[in-house]
């Protein structure tokens, strides 16, 4: 077992344990905090598998922007919602998840290529960027339009929310949408 393999199994254990802790929490705040650890482990795994630029993006977008956005929204609720339990159907759900996992594992091990030992290779950020904007520039534009549409939708939802709160006032509630607009811009940047 090489050093890289040791690092991989340690990272895999870290990601699995923190994700398992995250999905079993009742409080969303605790789940988000465990999930940040899982995403940092995922970023290290991306770095190990030769994608340093995407490792940086995962830290910035997933562990940074998205998780902080969820935490902000949880704090936006005036009185914290009481702890919600699991659905009564959590047993069959877990059973179906395990069946899915068994089928997926059988498929992976049936594949003759699954035993191939991966050789390390690194996609340098410069090469990756050149490749991306050389061949997939149209997809990048479409994704930017998607982010713009999401931005417009979120601002619209936020304005409707504010109008329901301040029905007597005629001025649009700028402060409520401003926070959301900032966080959206930060996500759209990478």
């Amino acid at each position, binding site marked *: 077992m090489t050093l890289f393999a040791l690092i991989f199994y340690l990272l895999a254990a870290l990601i699995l344990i923190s994700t398992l802790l995250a*999905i079993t929490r009742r409080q*969303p705040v605790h789940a988000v905090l465990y999930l940040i650890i899982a995403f940092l482990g995922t970023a290290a795994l991306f770095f190990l598998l030769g994608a340093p630029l995407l490792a940086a993006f995962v830290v910035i*977008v997933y562990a940074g922007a998205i998780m902080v956005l969820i935490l902000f929204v949880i704090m936006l609720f005036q009185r914290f919602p009481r702890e919600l339990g699991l659905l009564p159907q959590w047993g069959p*759900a877990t059973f179906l998840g395990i069946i899915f*996992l068994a089928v997926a594992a059988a498929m*992976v091990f049936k594949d003759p290529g699954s035993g191939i*030992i991966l050789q390390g290779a690194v996609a340098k950020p410069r090469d990756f960027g050149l490749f991306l904007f050389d061949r997939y520039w149209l997809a990048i534009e479409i994704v930017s339009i998607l982010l713009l549409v999401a*931005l417009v*939708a979120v601002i619209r939802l936020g304005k409707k929310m504010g109008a329901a709160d301040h029905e007597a006032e005629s001025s649009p509630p700028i402060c409520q949408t401003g926070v959301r607009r900032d966080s959206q811009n930060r996500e759209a940047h990478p």
Partner: protein
Amino acid sequence: MIVPFGHIFILAGLIFAMGLICLVAHRNLIMTLIGVEVMMNAAAIAFIASSLRWKLMEGQVFVLFILAVAAAEVSVGLALVVSMYRRTGSIDPDHYDILKG
């Protein structure tokens, strides 16, 4: 020399199954969104592993798109959750029964 290709896929499958269970079993809408995030994370790991195996950079390009789609999805989803919370005072989807006559 890192690890066999199948081991990374098993890791991705385990994370995906955990996200699926979280998505289905929780009563809290924010936990449902977190489950979707976990599933997208598993898909990204599978794409990166395939990119390394076939030495093609398309896998990494797809992971970039997954990041952008996850950002858009979670922001719209959270805005909807907050909107429904303002309207009904609950983030339990069982309480969203105002259409009941």
